[in-house]
């Protein structure tokens, strides 16, 4: 199985974020591998462990895991983390013209890279913790003409028949879905527990190839991407005033009653 995992470098989701000039102020916070993409990397590793006779991917095994990311040059740090977990190689699409791209442009670029190779399976996280749109996987499936199996809580693949089934966890419950590969699959954070890179993995990742591509390598016109080509524009952004401090009582045996009195005072009941 040839697997591509789409990962994004994002500001640390534990940090407070700010805006600068209509864009996220990325300089003010640490950049990390999107937490939710770690589950996609882990799932790729587990699928290879299940299906490869040697339990591993790489040269001659018929299995490979390629990390794909669009972002600035420093996104190589996030990619390195995915490689140190055990992925084989990576492609980074980095071009100054990409700055400020919207989801439509991002999916266009990712689809160009993915479509140029013959991957069986494209794994994504359910959302990037900065943009929080949760739309790239559906857009990729649309652009590539692949099946879309999103919000997977479990995945199983039968490589012989190219059949893939997932349990999709949505607003309404669990939907069991099936499709033929190739497919775009996004995974939720309950699917697995991502491994920590081992020392060996970290050392090995330093020798792995990160191929850096520009827009001209992909034959994409720079005028179709980036901030100026974004089809939605931010007019303004304001920090919300902090919430006024509320009342805090310590339960002395009457905490529940105090809560009821508050509800009465606020006319909730």
């Amino acid at each position: 199985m040839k697997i591509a995992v789409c990962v994004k470098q994002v500001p640390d989701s534990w940090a407070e974020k700010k805006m600068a000039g209509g864009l996220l102020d990325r300089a003010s916070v640490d950049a990390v591998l999107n937490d939710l993409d770690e589950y996609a990397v882990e799932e790729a590793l587990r699928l290879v462990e299940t299906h490869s006779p040697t339990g591993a991917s790489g040269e001659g095994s018929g299995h490979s895991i390629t990390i794909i990311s669009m972002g600035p040059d420093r996104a190589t740090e996030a990619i390195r983390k995915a490689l140190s977990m055990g992925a084989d190689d990576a492609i980074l699409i980095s071009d100054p013209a990409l700055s400020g791209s919207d989801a439509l442009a991002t999916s266009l670029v990712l689809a160009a890279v993915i479509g140029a190779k013959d991957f069986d399976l494209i794994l994504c996280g359910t959302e990037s913790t900065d943009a929080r749109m949760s739309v790239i996987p559906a857009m990729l499936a649309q652009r590539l003409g692949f099946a879309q199996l999103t919000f997977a809580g479990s995945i199983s693949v039968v490589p012989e028949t190219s059949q893939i089934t997932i349990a999709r966890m949505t607003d309404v419950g669990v939907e069991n879905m099936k499709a033929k590969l190739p497919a775009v699959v996004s995974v939720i954070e309950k699917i697995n527990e991502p491994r920590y890179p081992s020392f060996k993995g970290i050392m090995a990742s330093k020798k792995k190839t990160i191929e850096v591509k520009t827009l001209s390598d992909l034959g994409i016109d720079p005028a179709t991407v980036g901030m100026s080509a974004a089809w939605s524009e931010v007019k303004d952004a304001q920090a919300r005033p902090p919430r006024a401090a509320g009342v805090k009582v310590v339960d002395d045996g009457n905490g529940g009653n105090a809560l009821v009195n508050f509800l009465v005072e606020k006319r909730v009941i």
Partner: protein
Amino acid sequence: MSQVFILVDHAGGHITKATSELALFGKRIGEVTALIFSNESSPLLEELTTMAVDRAVVIEGINFDSYSAAPVARIVANLISEKSPSAFLVSSTVKGKEVAARAAVLTNSGLITDAIDLTSELVATQSIFGGSTTVHSQVTHGCAIVTLRSNSIEVEATTSNPVVETVVVSVDSLDPSALLDQVISLEATVSGGRPELTEAAIVVSGGRGTNGDFTPVEALADSLGAAVGASRAATDAGWYPHSHQVGQTGKTVSPQLYLACGISGAIQHRAGMQTSKMIIAVNKDAEAPIFDLVDFGVVGDLFAVLPQATAGILSKKS
């Protein structure tokens, strides 16, 4: 006059409240056409007469619940190309956002997700970074495709008499690439008769502090007619279904009142509830970060505080 399409979200033969909200936003902009994808549309058309819509297009002939967002998006895109509406509004559900994303690709249109307000000039308001920042933005290309969070606008009672048109489609008439994935079976979460989490006026959530026992949380919720939510710690432990998780990787709720019980208030949990109008917390630890957000907090054991509050509410109501 400007035309607006809204996607009717329905389940179990009923239209969601979020759909009435879409109609009200649509009315600000122009004439509203409701798109209903269903083979059993009569009860839905009946309910539609209580919403602010001018027209309805029923699309039938395929069991749309058996597929991902692909076939719906394909048909919506065809209708957008045909009728050139100025906007297409969808509620921010998992599938709604996927329909919107695919329709944006198919029609070369800009997309704004998770808006909480939309003006007649199509300026959308979004609350980002866990509610700490408010952004105004606008689609500048194609049809303005906007997904809106539920509980964003007060629903007023209205009546309408929409002109109905029916379009029959067949599996053969669609591009095969729109039918690549299939639903084999659905295990719907049982709501226990409680309101839907994202639409409820009051949400009572439990976290690790419940230690797996949601009885006091559910009892308090029922005394208030509220929905029940859970932190990720609680859903990860299998104490409550994932579909009830509130937060970054769960649902975003914006009720009149949110009660967090035994929840510390991690940044990822706050991302899903910070825009609630009023917040109450019950937590043993006086230093828990959730207390930074509250209008009212009780430092105490939820197993003592919640039953007392429930009893008090029930006696006030009787």
